[in-house]
């Protein structure tokens, strides 16, 4: 199912530097990546290797210094003016590492989850929105009646992260970016998140997921394909089984060794 020939989202030869002119340091060196509809791509690599930066560029959250990004074959480079950008905005969802800093502490769950709709779908009335919020929460594994009116502070880490996921999927995105969605919550809760992603993939098989993680156990569990970054360079890429079972580069091998029991 992940083998449609045209990728949903693709990046070519991305380079990126940060910092002021005097102290510039390059974070990405000519990296290319793509993800197909229905596919789960895992981006792994050591801390600071540029995982977040690459994926953020792909989702148009950051601009690249050079290279191109295409969503459904339309360029998104150049922000709002570019043809693919608006579609990408509408059809993508975001899940970040720390669920608590992803939820406005002074907004109720219902309001947070509904936010993408209230921003993008002016055509929906309140009842529609309420229904969709409830549906999204249910899909994320939370009983709506129980959670709609809570504030983030009354949620556990796993619950909060599932609220964030509900927000990410409410507008039926074609692509979800999950940047280390499990590293800030405890082991027991991680399982729930994994289950949630599995449920989403089951319910909406064409959804593409880009998952950034340094937790190989998680990656192994969910990803179809893996992309390994090392110090801003593409180390290797391939199917999960290939990369984990038969790593090509030394660096990947080390990563795998350190992670196994």
């Amino acid at each position, binding site marked *: 199912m992940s083998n449609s020939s045209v990728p949903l989202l693709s990046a070519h030869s991305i380079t990126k530097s940060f910092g002021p002119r005097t102290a510039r340091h390059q974070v990405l060196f000519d990296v290319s990546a793509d993800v197909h509809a229905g596919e789960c791509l895992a981006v792994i690599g050591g801390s600071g290797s540029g995982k977040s930066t690459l994926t953020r560029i792909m*989702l*148009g*959250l950051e601009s690249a210094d050079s290279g191109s990004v295409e969503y459904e074959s339309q360029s998104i480079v150049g922000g709002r003016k570019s043809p693919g950008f608006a579609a990408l*905005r*509408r059809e*993508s969802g*975001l899940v*970040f*590492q*720390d669920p608590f*800093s*992803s*939820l*406005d*502490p*002074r*907004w*109720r769950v*219902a309001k*947070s989850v*509904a*936010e*993408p709709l209230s*921003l*993008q779908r002016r055509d929906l009335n*309140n009842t529609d*929105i*309420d*229904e969709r*919020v*409830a549906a999204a929460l249910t899909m994320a594994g939370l009983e*709506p*009646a*129980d959670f*709609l*009116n*809570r*504030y983030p*502070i*009354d949620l556990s880490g796993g619950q909060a992260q599932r609220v964030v996921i509900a*927000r*990410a999927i409410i*507008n039926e995105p074609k692509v979800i970016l999950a940047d280390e969605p499990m590293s800030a919550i405890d082991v027991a809760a991680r399982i729930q998140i994994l289950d949630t992603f599995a449920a989403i993939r089951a319910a909406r098989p064409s959804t593409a997921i880009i998952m950034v993680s340094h937790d190989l156990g998680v990656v192994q569990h969910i990803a179809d394909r893996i992309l390994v970054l090392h110090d801003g360079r593409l180390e290797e890429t391939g199917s999960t089984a290939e990369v984990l079972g038969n790593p090509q580069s030394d660096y990947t091998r080390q990563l795998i060794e350190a992670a196994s029991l």
Partner: protein
Amino acid sequence: MSNVRRATTGDRRAAFVIVLHSMWRRAEGKFALIVLALWLLIAIVSLFWTPQSLWATDGYHVWAKPSAEHWLGTDGTGADVFSWLLAGSHTNLVIVLLTVVASMAWGLLLIAAMVARNAALASSSVVVVDALISVPTVLIALILAVPLGASIAVIVIACGFGYGLNLARVARPAALLASRSSYVESALANGASGWRVLISHVMPNILPVLAVQLSLSAGTAVLAESGLTYLGIGVPSGVPSWGHSLATSVKLINVFPLTVVWPGLIVTVVVVALNIFGDVLRDAIDPVTNPALREIGGER
């Protein structure tokens, strides 16, 4: 099955009651609420009625000692000091309200600039605040008083300017935290405009800081009023205010020193109440710190 509750008027009323109740539950909150309510009450009442008319001057009984008729004695015109003290409450209330509004408007503008996505605007506004904040309020008041003369406007503009800077400086970390948070990033990714983010995400999250800082400003404005009025660049003559009463009591110090005690005591108590009010309000209006507020409409 959906149970999304939108804030209804009933909810808002409930929230208001809860906030008040949460404040009232604490001893210091009780104190602040009582003092401020009394202030409000006296301000309104004294607008229409004072024990003696402010203009009932009696040249034959100036600087009289306290008596049954004049509880705090009379001033240099023979008018009732107590009545002037009561009447001062509404001028101070107006000054405080205007100053709070002015400093909030100016402060929020600065905060908006400081957390702007435009890096040049953000960093230059930060540096400007850092620099301007070292100019004393009284200097600004003195400069303003030159063209404006003694007037309430001098107090309000000078204090509003200074306290706005202060507000911006103090609220900036919270504003920055909110504006750089993942929820704002997510909102932006969903196409929210900078202004929308500012209003719907940043503002609610600096509300607690705002509550504290604005009530501190209110207290400082009351203090500034007394100082500036004494210096002759605050409330103009003939307008009752606590600064006026305090300045009048200075004249009485050699004749009836104890009269000095009252206006200062009132100012101190009110300023203490304002400071406490801010602290208590912060805890009460914030759903994060006030669980009761989170329960509204929650049937779990």
